[in-house]
C-alpha cells in the first residue's frame, strides 16, 4: 500500500465548477425532470415564471417504486418534521424519516418506504394533502375559538 506522501500519478485536480456540491445535478446533466420543466416553459424559462417552477422536489437515485428518497430544496424542519409525521401515520407506509444533510445547504431529504399497496411517490403526495387538511382543521378550530373568545369578552364587558 503506497503511503500518502508517495502517492504517484496524482490525477489532475477537478476544477471546482465541475464538481457538484451535492446530489443536485448541474444543468448539463439534464435529467428528465428538468427537461420536463423546459418543455413546459417553452424552453425559455426566464422571468418570474422561473421562480415558481424551479424543480423543488426530486427523487434521489437508487430508488424503487416502494422505497425512495426525496430531496426538497429550500425546505427545513418546518416542513420536514410535520411531513415525516403525517406520512408515518399512513398505514401503507412502512418507514419514513427526514434529515437535513448539512445545515448550510437549504436542502431536506425524506426517505419513504412503503408496503406493496402503494408507492413512495403516492405516499408523499398523500402526506402533503393530509398535512394540508390538518392545517385546514387547525385554522378552522383556531378561528372558531377566536370568535367564541371575542364574543365571550363582549358579553362580559356589556
Amino acid at each position, binding site marked *: *500500500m*503506497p503511503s500518502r506522501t508517495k502517492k504517484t*500519478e496524482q*490525477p489532475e*485536480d*477537478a476544477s471546482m465548477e465541475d*464538481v*457538484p456540491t451535492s446530489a*443536485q445535478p*448541474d444543468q448539463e*446533466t439534464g*435529467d*428528465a*425532470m428538468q427537461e*420536463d420543466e423546459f418543455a*413546459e416553459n417553452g424552453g425559455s424559462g426566464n422571468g*418570474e415564471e422561473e*421562480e415558481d*417552477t424551479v*424543480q*423543488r*422536489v*426530486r*427523487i*434521489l*437515485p*437508487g*430508488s*424503487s417504486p*416502494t*422505497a*425512495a428518497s426525496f430531496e426538497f430544496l429550500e*425546505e427545513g*424542519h*418546518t*416542513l420536514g*418534521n*410535520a411531513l415525516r*409525521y403525517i406520512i408515518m401515520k*399512513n*398505514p401503507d407506509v412502512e418507514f419514513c424519516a427526514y434529515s437535513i444533510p448539512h445545515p448550510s445547504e437549504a436542502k431536506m*431529504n425524506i426517505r419513504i418506504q412503503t408496503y406493496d399497496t402503494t408507492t413512495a*411517490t403516492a405516499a*408523499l*403526495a398523500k402526506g*402533503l*394533502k393530509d*398535512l*394540508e387538511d*390538518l392545517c385546514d*382543521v*387547525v*385554522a378552522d*378550530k*383556531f378561528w*372558531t*375559538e*377566536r370568535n367564541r373568545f*371575542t364574543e365571550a*369578552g363582549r358579553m362580559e364587558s356589556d
Partner: protein
Amino acid sequence: MDYDAMDMDTEALGPAVKISEADSTHVNFELSNVDLSFANSLRRIIQAEVPTVAIDLVEFMANTSVLADEFIAHRLGLIPLDSRNIKDMPMARDCDCGGHCDKCTVILTLHAKCLGDEIMNVHASDFSVSSARPNQTVGNPIITDPEGLGPLICKLRKGQELHIECMAKKGIAKEHAKWMPTSAVGFEYDPHNKLHHLDLWYETDAEAEWPKSKYADWEDPPQEGEPFDYDAVPNRFYFEVESAGNIDPDAIIQLGISELQQKLAKLITGLGEKSNIDDQYDGPQSPGAMDDGAMYQNDGYQTAYGNGGAQSAWGGGATAYGTTPYGNSGQGGWS
C-alpha cells in the same frame, strides 16, 4: 384523513384550540391533540415565514446627527410598519418592475432639523408616508404609546439635521429578523416534565427548586411512585404569541397556517407535474433502496457504490483511494 382510529388514540378526537388570554398585542392558547412536530411547525412558521413590511433601503440626503448612517439605517429597519393588508403587496423580487415601484414598495421620508436650544427627538411618527402604495394602511409606522410618538429614531442637537428617504419592502424573517411579525413566541408542553424531555438541574430537590409553570395546574401532577410511561407523547401545547405590532396576533396564527398550506400546495402542484419520473437519474447516488437488488449485484469485491475500485473518483488512474466508498458512483454526474 381515512386512518384507522385505533392507533390514533387521543388524536382521533381531532385537534382542539383553547384561548386563555388575548388582546391587541398577544394571544395565549392551547393547541391539543396534534403531534409535537406539527405544533413546532406552526411555531416555526409564525416566527420565520409570515411576511411583513420593513424598511429595507435608506437614502441619506443629510445626516449631521451623532449617529452614523448605517447605525440609523439599522434602527429604521427594526421599526414595525403596518402589515395588516400586506396581501395587496407582492415581494419586490417577484414584482414585474424589476426594482421598486408603487406596487411593491412604500416610500417613507423624514426631514428633521433642530433649530432650538432643546434636544430634539425624532420619532417614527415624524415619517411622511407616500400615498402611492398598494393600500392606505400598509407601511404606516405602528404607534402604540399614549403620546402617539412611536419608536425613537435619534436625537438632534441644535443645528443637526436628518434627511432620509426609506424604501419599505415585503419580506420574511428567514431573510432578516426585522421582518418578524412576532416579538416572542412561547411554546411549552408537559409542565410537570412527565415525559422527561428535560433533565432539570438541582441542588437537592428539583421539585422544590424549580418554579411551577403557570400551566402546571392545567395538567394532572405525577402520582407518587407512578411508573414512567415510555409510550407517552406530548399532546397539549401552550403557545404565547406576542405580536410586534405590525400584524394582529390572531392574524399571525391564521397567516402562519395559510403560509404552511401554500408551501404544501406548491409542492403538490410541483409533484403532480412530473409523477412519471421514477429513477432516471444518473447523478450521484443516495444510499440505495435496500430491495433494489440489481444495484447490489456485483462480483463480491466491489463496494456497494458501484465503483469497481480501479478508478479514482475523478476518473484518473488508480490511487490508493480508489476503493473508498466515496468513489465514482457508476455514471457519475461529473465524469
